[in-house]
């Protein structure tokens, strides 16, 4: 009825949104990371999956992750409009209306879950559905605006993709896939808080309770250091569980050790540098860290599958 009234009153809005605007709603940068980590989970898992079904599964996971991004942009359009980092997104800039983003997100969520269920299995599909629900409802609607621990709990949503990839092959949830989950889960807080430390004012303006704004910079740095310290053994754990080889053991130790050292630097300097160089460097390195850790697992899995070559810690000790 509202639409009819709009037309009669001359306020009818004819969309000028392009397919690229809708694609932007899917958060392509986040989607890239999701595709990558889900692929690693899929290849590191014991067992085989038909290559076509593997590609379709990854596609479904990517679309599901994108759909949760669209739902996030629908709900967050008010605060996106006051932060420099997000002001150009399709909804706050007016290229896509909130209701269009909502419908787009809901339809893609349903299609991606159903597709994954039919193409792979229903355990993987159930996990994908839970991930979308977790990100869109638990994180975006509930926790993001109500607790400074938003990133910690919200980070779980970003940590699910390798578990989904693993479940696509095995149809189960195992300790190995839980370790992959834990790596991303523990990595998220120091990664985001490094960003939050120098974008504090932005989050403050938007009324989003990020940890530095609520408990202060010192306590934020303390917590970052704790997470980085726990991340070290968890990152190396795949080598001890047998699904990461010796190469992974060496690379992951160096990477997680560097991550801890850089976080310690951020903690030790304690904001004495007004340019926050250490925080910015840690943020940049954290992105490289996650990519490199999963890339090493990926390379080992591909080499093992292609040539049957594998050297694990169990072969040495």
């Amino acid at each position, binding site marked *: 009825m509202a639409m009819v009234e709009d*037309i*009669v*009153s*001359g*306020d*009818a809005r*004819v*969309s*000028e*949104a*392009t*397919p690229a605007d*809708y694609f932007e709603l899917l958060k392509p940068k986040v989607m890239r990371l999701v595709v990558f980590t889900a692929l690693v989970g899929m290849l590191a898992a014991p067992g085989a999956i*038909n290559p*076509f*079904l593997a590609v*379709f599964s990854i*596609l479904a996971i990517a679309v599901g992750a994108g759909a949760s991004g669209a739902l996030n942009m629908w709900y967050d359009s008010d605060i996106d409009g006051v932060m420099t980092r997000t002001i150009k997104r399709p909804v706050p800039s007016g290229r896509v209306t909130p209701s269009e983003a909502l419908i787009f997100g809901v339809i893609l969520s349903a*299609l991606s879950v159903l*597709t994954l269920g*039919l*193409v792979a299995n229903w355990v993987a599909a159930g996990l994908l559905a839970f991930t979308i629900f977790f990100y869109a409802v638990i994180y975006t609607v509930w926790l993001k605006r109500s607790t400074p621990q938003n990133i910690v709990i919200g980070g779980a949503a970003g940590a699910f993709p390798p578990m989904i990839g693993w479940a696509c092959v095995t149809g189960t949830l195992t300790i190995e896939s839980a370790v992959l989950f834990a790596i991303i889960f523990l990595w998220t807080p120091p990664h985001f808080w490094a960003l939050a430390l120098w974008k504090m004012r932005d989050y403050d303006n938007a009324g989003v309770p990020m940890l530095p704004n609520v408990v202060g910079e010192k306590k934020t740095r303390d917590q970052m250091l704790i997470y980085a310290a726990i991340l070290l053994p968890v990152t190396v754990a795949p080598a001890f569980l047998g699904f990461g080889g010796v190469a992974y053991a060496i690379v992951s130790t160096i990477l997680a050790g560097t991550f801890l050292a850089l976080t310690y630097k951020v903690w030790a300097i304690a904001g004495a540098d007004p340019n926050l160089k250490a925080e910015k460097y840690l943020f940049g390195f954290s992105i490289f860290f996650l990519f490199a850790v999963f890339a090493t697992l990926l390379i080992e899995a591909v080499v093992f599958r292609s040539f049957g070559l594998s050297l694990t810690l169990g072969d040495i000790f």
Partner: protein
Amino acid sequence: MAEVRHKKGEKIERVNLSEKQLKSRKARNIAIALCLAAFVGVFYVATVVKFGPAIMQNRGFNQ
């Protein structure tokens, strides 16, 4: 922009889309068509792969 329907016999005012609106609508239509085609393709191939060789075993022909 507005479309107003008057009483029978009177002139109907139509929505005149701008060049940009027409262009973006066409692009959206093409994108939807391509996505639907890809979706059909995914399910066609997935069905063939899931059935495997059994897809060729039609009792009516083989017996």
